[in-house]
């Protein structure tokens, strides 16, 4: 790399120091490049283009909050003692002095009360964890709803799903570490989940806890997972996620000059680096403000875990809320057969539903590409309305998630809204089935009506807000044609593929399973695209424009001839 010293020299006068400095920088760069070959790598990437849109930064929130988690987490490890050895607390918090507790709990109290900034770091760590998972989730929604998961990004979609899973496990293990009453209650429930596992349940529980619950092994074991195993996996997967992002280049919204073959935006250096770097400081800063202002998990009030104690409002952190909600609304199903016990009331909500949801998420790109037969690469995003069924599927899943989630807070809802827990539970038992269906139908029709609205704008122009009165006394709103750029953006989308007809399949000579599969696929694809509005053809647009111009002329000439000379049409 050559260093341009002309400017440096002028701004700094004529002293030779700067030139020397520049030479030194050049020498260092040369030294490094001769050993690392940085030049070729940087040549490609230093001005790499990233498109700008707010929704592209949601994943960045997750990335930066992960960095905040690493930083605050390292601080906490300096004092936290992951041991379940029972000691008598003799720290600064009076009301617990003399109480027996695990070293883990005592060191958590020490971090909170005897390390300056320790309580702040604890709270920042906890808030950052909640934001980490929340931002991964909305990032995932953005990717799905805009179709960014399509080829060639399916693998990155799967990595993202795994990150969400790992983030959740990381959160749960961290939540369990302080050994306070709430975290202990969570671990107790986890023990119940494990015991409900068919055949090997009690063995799994005894192995995990190093004996009978609660044992004295669970916190050291969770600690190892929480600070070593899972963060390591998270880091590796995040690296893979980012490398693939760089390799595929970011998707972009369609628009003038923005096509499937290019990516338009700002170069990494300087604008994107500044924006991303600045955003890191903002995420860090917001987390610090939250850590300083809002209390989270006041362990000193909960006291140490004791299997005989419990508190009202025993909830897990939000990301574990939805299986907990299902656990609350499941009917008391338990089968006793030939001396064995099958706990459907635990297995279905905890051991079946969350893995099933994850599987569904991971499979979504493949189901869609099988169904639509679309095997092309896609780099332009779709607006959610232009894939009505896809959007509706995600909204249905979100509705299921949201209702289960709300069920997880049924006791809080009951006291805050003066309702009966029992009635909420009965309602939710039905709502988790009916709600997603209703949400699916509404979303789908809503999307299609938005498509129609877009078509209307394309063909008949946008509502200008200008009212004109004809000589006959009738009023009409003047529609003006869309600016070229906007019109192009609206039409820059693929037509939906036309599913095979049964005759085509028959004619192709397919037989047996292949025949049935293709018929099923054709039927599903027909349903998938049913009622979607396709973009108008060039002729349709031309004709509509022609028609509109004609109408406008007519209207204007009438107005010019009529008494209302100063009508708004003059503007």
């Amino acid at each position: 790399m050559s260093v341009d010293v002309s400017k440096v020299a002028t701004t700094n006068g004529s002293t030779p120091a700067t030139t020397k400095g520049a030479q030194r920088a050049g020498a260092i760069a040369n030294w490094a490049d001769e050993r690392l070959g940085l030049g070729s790598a940087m040549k490609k990437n230093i001005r790499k283009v990233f498109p700008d849109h707010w929704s592209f930064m949601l994943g960045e929130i997750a990335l930066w909050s992960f960095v905040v988690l690493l930083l605050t987490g390292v601080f906490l490890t300096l004092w936290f003692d992951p041991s379940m050895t029972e000691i008598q607390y003799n720290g600064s918090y009076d009301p617990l002095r003399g109480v027996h507790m695990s070293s883990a709990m005592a060191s958590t109290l020490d971090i909170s009360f005897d390390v300056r900034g320790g309580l702040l770091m604890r709270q920042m760590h906890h808030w950052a964890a909640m934001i980490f998972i929340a931002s991964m989730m909305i990032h995932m929604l953005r990717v799905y709803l805009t179709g960014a998961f399509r080829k060639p990004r399916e693998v990155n979609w799967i990595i993202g799903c795994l990150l969400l899973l790992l983030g959740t496990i990381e959160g749960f293990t961290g939540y369990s570490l302080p050994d306070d009453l709430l975290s202990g209650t969570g671990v107790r429930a986890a023990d119940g989940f494990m015991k409900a596992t068919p055949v090997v349940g009690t063995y799994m529980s005894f192995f995990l806890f190093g004996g009978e619950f609660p044992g004295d092994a669970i916190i050291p074991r969770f600690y190892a997972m929480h600070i070593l195993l899972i963060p390591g996996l998270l880091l590796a997967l995040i690296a893979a996620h980012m490398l693939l992002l760089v390799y595929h280049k970011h998707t972009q919204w369609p628009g003038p000059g923005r096509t499937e073959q290019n990516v338009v935006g700002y170069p990494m250096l300087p604008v994107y680096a500044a924006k991303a770097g600045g955003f890191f400081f903002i995420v860090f800063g917001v987390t610090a403000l939250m850590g300083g202002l809002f209390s989270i998990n006041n362990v000193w009030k909960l006291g140490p875990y004791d299997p005989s104690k419990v508190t009202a409002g025993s909830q897990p952190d939000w990301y574990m809320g939805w299986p907990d909600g299902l656990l609350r609304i499941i009917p008391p199903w338990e089968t006793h057969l030939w001396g064995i016990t099958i706990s459907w009331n635990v297995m279905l909500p905890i051991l079946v539903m969350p893995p099933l949801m994850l599987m569904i998420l991971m499979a979504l790109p493949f189901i869609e590409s099988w169904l639509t037969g679309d095997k092309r690469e896609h780099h332009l995003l779709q607006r959610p309305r232009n894939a009505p069924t896809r959007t509706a599927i995600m909204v249905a899943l979100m509705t299921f998630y949201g209702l289960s989630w709300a069920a997880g807070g049924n006791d809080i809802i009951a006291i805050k809204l003066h309702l009966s827990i029992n009635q909420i539970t009965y309602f939710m038992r039905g709502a988790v089935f009916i709600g997603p269906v209703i949400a699916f139908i509404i979303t789908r029709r809503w999307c299609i009506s938005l498509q129609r609205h877009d078509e209307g704008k394309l063909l008949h122009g946008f509502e200008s807000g200008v009212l004109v009165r004809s000589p006959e006394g009738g009023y009409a709103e003047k529609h003006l044609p869309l600016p070229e750029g906007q019109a192009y953006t609206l039409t820059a989308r693929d037509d939906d593929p036309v599913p095979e007809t049964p005759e085509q399949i028959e004619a192709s000579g397919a037989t047996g399973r292949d025949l049935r599969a293709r018929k099923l696929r054709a039927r599903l694809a027909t349903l998938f695209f049913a009622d979607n509005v396709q973009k108008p053809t060039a002729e349709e647009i031309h004709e509509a424009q022609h028609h509109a111009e004609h109408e406008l002329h007519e209207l204007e000439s009438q107005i010019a001839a009529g008494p209302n000379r100063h009508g708004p049409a003059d503007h």
Partner: protein
Amino acid sequence: MSDAHDTHSPQGGEIVPTGPIADPGLPDHQWRPTDVDPAKEKRAERQVAILFGLSAVSTVAFLVAYFTFDIGDNWDVIGGFGASTMALGLTLGLALLFIGVGVIHWARKLMADHEISELRHPARSSDDDREVAVQALTDGINESGIGRRPLIRNSLLGAVGLLGLPAIVMLRDLGPLPGKKLYHTIWGSGTKQAPMRIVRDGIWTPILASDLEIGDLVNCQPDALHNPERYGIDPSEVEGVNLQIHKSKASLILLRMNPGDIKPGKAADGSSRANWTVDGIVAYSKICTHVGCPISLNERTTHHLLCPCHQSTFDLADSGRVVFGPAGRPLPQLAISVDDEGYLVAQHDFDEPVGPSFWERDYYER
């Protein structure tokens, strides 16, 4: 970039929006006020510098707050809040935010903002590359001869596969086998001479039947946890982790109700539970049969006991029957009586395992 041989590539055929309207191309770049007006440029420059300056001030304030505000057993308090946490959080947060906002302001107002267009390449490798890669792989495999020597291949696969076993087997010592541990609690450790007394949790005093009034709910533990010698139990058996293990199974609630309200059920061996109570005092396991939360949210008027975790509700007047919620089994009842001194004691251990269900739970023999 032309891939005529592959119709699925992004360049293949009809794809890529051949829309009804021609692409007008990237709009012309428009300058920002800061690009064209030196006064505005200077102003933006000053703003960025001021933001960075404010950050520095906040950092200094952070350091001052760190050394000024006391924590430990003598927290400085401002407006009812711990001053240290709040001041540190505010100053640190602002110091970071000012840098972040300043950098972004810089990027938005002053850095060049020409949009650049970069060409994409298909994710797949070129055909030439593929060919070379496949050839290299084939060559490598051929030279190793693994395809031609199934004996070596199969024995290697077998040997490596077998190596998975140590990885699994070595986890064996994570914990002991369950054995019969889940079937028993320390309530069964009482003797004829010293039946297991029921004591108040946290207060650790035994309870006379006459102490309780109708409507009283007592959270209890077995006396052995506090007083092991009396039952011939080694004190180390009820310390530390062992104490927690015992509590997680033996925690008990006593409820005194009108004796007429109680509907005695059947014990596991089919006998009546009529003599399991003392003057309307009933004793139940405090551990929920759903996933094991301790429960003691009792409604005195209905004798319904609610679990705060998942809202299973049990009727304590009716053998702990489940009246609502996800729990699949009634709460285990403890048979109680009084000892020579009139204190409440357990007659014997629970006649079923307490706590959450597990697969082999019904293989229960005492």
